[in-house]
């Protein structure tokens, strides 16, 4: 039980690192970037390449993925995304689906369609006993890294000059502009950091998430749920949303055949609930709190 909870938290925290960039960019520019997962995929594949083909240490792959995706994000933001800010949400959606298609096709062409397996360093393999629960060392590592990142982000957001400008810009872009804050530049930097985090998450998640060319599509719904449930005005909202989602998903997969006795009773073979938990969660949240679970006050 504790083990499942632990796995769920690890998964959730990973999800948070993957999705937080999307939340902030959405809150800042009201820009829907469905292709956010493509950056995570880039980070994942970079790790696979460096690790499996060139034997670079996994621990070095992580910062490499962070930097590479950060630069990739910055370049794409300046060249392509910047043209889309004043367009409709539909255009943004189409544009980012286009990017997804291009990324999927390119990765498929270059790396093949099969799922990639990463050989984790021996230090991260195996399990250990904590409080009577069996815990995967790798998942503990994920939790620690993501936890540190979260604390770092929260600190940067609440204590630094950039953070306060960013918060002002998210709160009300027009007012912030009026106060002389260069919102466009803040956005560029945030976009790059968000992409970098996604890349890091992708690299970190190579052992948990299944990495193949369809990655950006497969996880798109998860990111959307994190944003919709957690809101875009804080990072604590998406954080708790991610944890909730991660735990729910892992629990659902573990108790996949919970409906089997009921199915036997009514004489129908009921499907496992594992694939549906996150959607059930999504629907419940929408019915109970249409503005999102962790959103304060009215949403835009």
């Amino acid at each position, binding site marked *: 039980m504790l083990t499942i909870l632990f796995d769920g938290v690890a998964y959730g925290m990973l999800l948070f690192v993957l999705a937080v960039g999307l939340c902030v960019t*959405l809150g800042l520019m009201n820009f*829907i970037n*469905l292709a956010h997962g493509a950056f995570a995929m880039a980070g994942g594949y970079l790790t696979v390449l460096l690790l499996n083909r060139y034997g670079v240490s996994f621990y070095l792959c992580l910062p490499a993925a962070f930097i590479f995706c950060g630069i990739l994000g910055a370049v794409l933001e300046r060249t*392509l995304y910047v*043209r*889309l800010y004043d*367009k409709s*949400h*539909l*255009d943004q*959606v*189409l*544009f980012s*689906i*286009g*990017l*997804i*298609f*291009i*990324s*999927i*096709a*390119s990765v*498929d*062409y270059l790396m093949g369609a099969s799922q990639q397996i990463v050989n984790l360093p021996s230090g991260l393999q195996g399990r250990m006993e904590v409080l009577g629960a069996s815990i995967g060392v790798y998942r503990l590592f994920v939790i620690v890294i993501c936890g540190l990142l979260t604390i770092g982000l929260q600190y940067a957001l609440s204590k630094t000059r950039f953070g306060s400008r960013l918060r002002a810009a998210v709160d009300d872009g027009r007012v912030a502009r009026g106060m002389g804050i260069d919102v466009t530049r803040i956005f560029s930097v945030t976009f790059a950091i968000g992409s970098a985090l996604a890349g890091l998450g992708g690299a970190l998640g190579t052992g948990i998430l299944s990495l193949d060319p369809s990655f950006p*599509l497969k996880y*798109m*719904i998860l990111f*959307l*749920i994190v*944003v*919709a449930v957690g809101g875009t005005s804080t990072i604590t909202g998406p954080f708790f949303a991610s944890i909730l989602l991660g735990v729910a998903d892992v629990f659902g997969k573990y108790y996949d055949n919970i409906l089997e006795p009921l199915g036997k009773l009514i004489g*129908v*073979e009921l*499907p*496992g609930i594992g*694939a*549906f938990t996150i*959607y059930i969660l*999504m*629907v419940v949240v*929408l*019915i109970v709190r*249409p*503005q999102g679970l962790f959103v304060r006050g009215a*949403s*835009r």
Partner: protein
Amino acid sequence: MSDIDADKVRARASLLAEGRWRWPEVLFWAVAASLFFLVPTKLTLLSEIMILGLLALSIDLVLGFAGIVTLGQGAFFGLGAYTAALMAKHGYGAAPLLGFIPINDPLLGLVGGAIVAGIVGFATSFLVLRGSDLTRLMVTLGVALIVEELANKLKWLTGGSDGLQGVLPAPLLGKWDFDLYGQVAFIYAFVILFVMFLVARQLVNSQFGMSLKAIKQNSLRSRTIGMPVNARLVTVYTIAAMFAGVAGAMLAQTTQFASPDMVAFHRSADALLILIFGGAGYLYGGLVGAVVFRVMQDFLGGITPQYWQFWLGVVLLLLVLFVRGGILGLLRNGRDKFFPKSGKD
């Protein structure tokens, strides 16, 4: 006094002009029908294009006219496909409805597909109404993924990932079996598409259609003139789901097969792209887009599938960045440029 009367006559005429048939429309349908004789070897492909076009048309109703961005129209397409396929599979040899309509009758299958898709569309429309574009994307996508998972997991009903085999629709109107050359399928798809198109055309040119366009332009104002905005959106979303259900049912019947592929994300995305290619808000956009899309797919996809997806992505980027309103938008701009407006229209 006569001045006022002239104004009224003019106003009535200009309002009614929106729904009048014009010669390019007549030409379009005439050409479509004549393809039966012009390219008799490609009838199966043409039926498929018409079905795709109908799916894209259903998206046009919600997106082009009511302004709801959806990533999950494939859900209703798939529901229609499975409903019609199950009716055709299990209806074979079963007791007929009302004593004379076989359960596996194709037209009954269309009705069944439309009803099931409509019910799910109605039920989920309330989730779609809530919140912003982002929640709409999430809900529509989520619903499609749920339907896809169900199609995969409910093996006893759907045949799981292998799909549903043994789909045997009765002869059309009790007379014509779906033949290998796709002749019956073509005529069937053409007639159904045309009828559904006429319904859609009537809808968007009516007062109801006006109110949808109004909501898309300004929902605050629509509400403050007393329009029940949510009820209108629920209605159009449900109708569009039924349209998609009919399209799916037709695909299952003409290919005598249903599989989770018919619900997959790419189905929703393709249909959305088809509409955007053609141009949203014209009703014809989906139909024109479907032709271009399939021709492109045959050409580029013939090289490698990845190649197709890559160029599809590139075309999308170019479309968003440089071409507003798709093919029909381009045509309209061209017309306005070379044949400046003579007052109204």
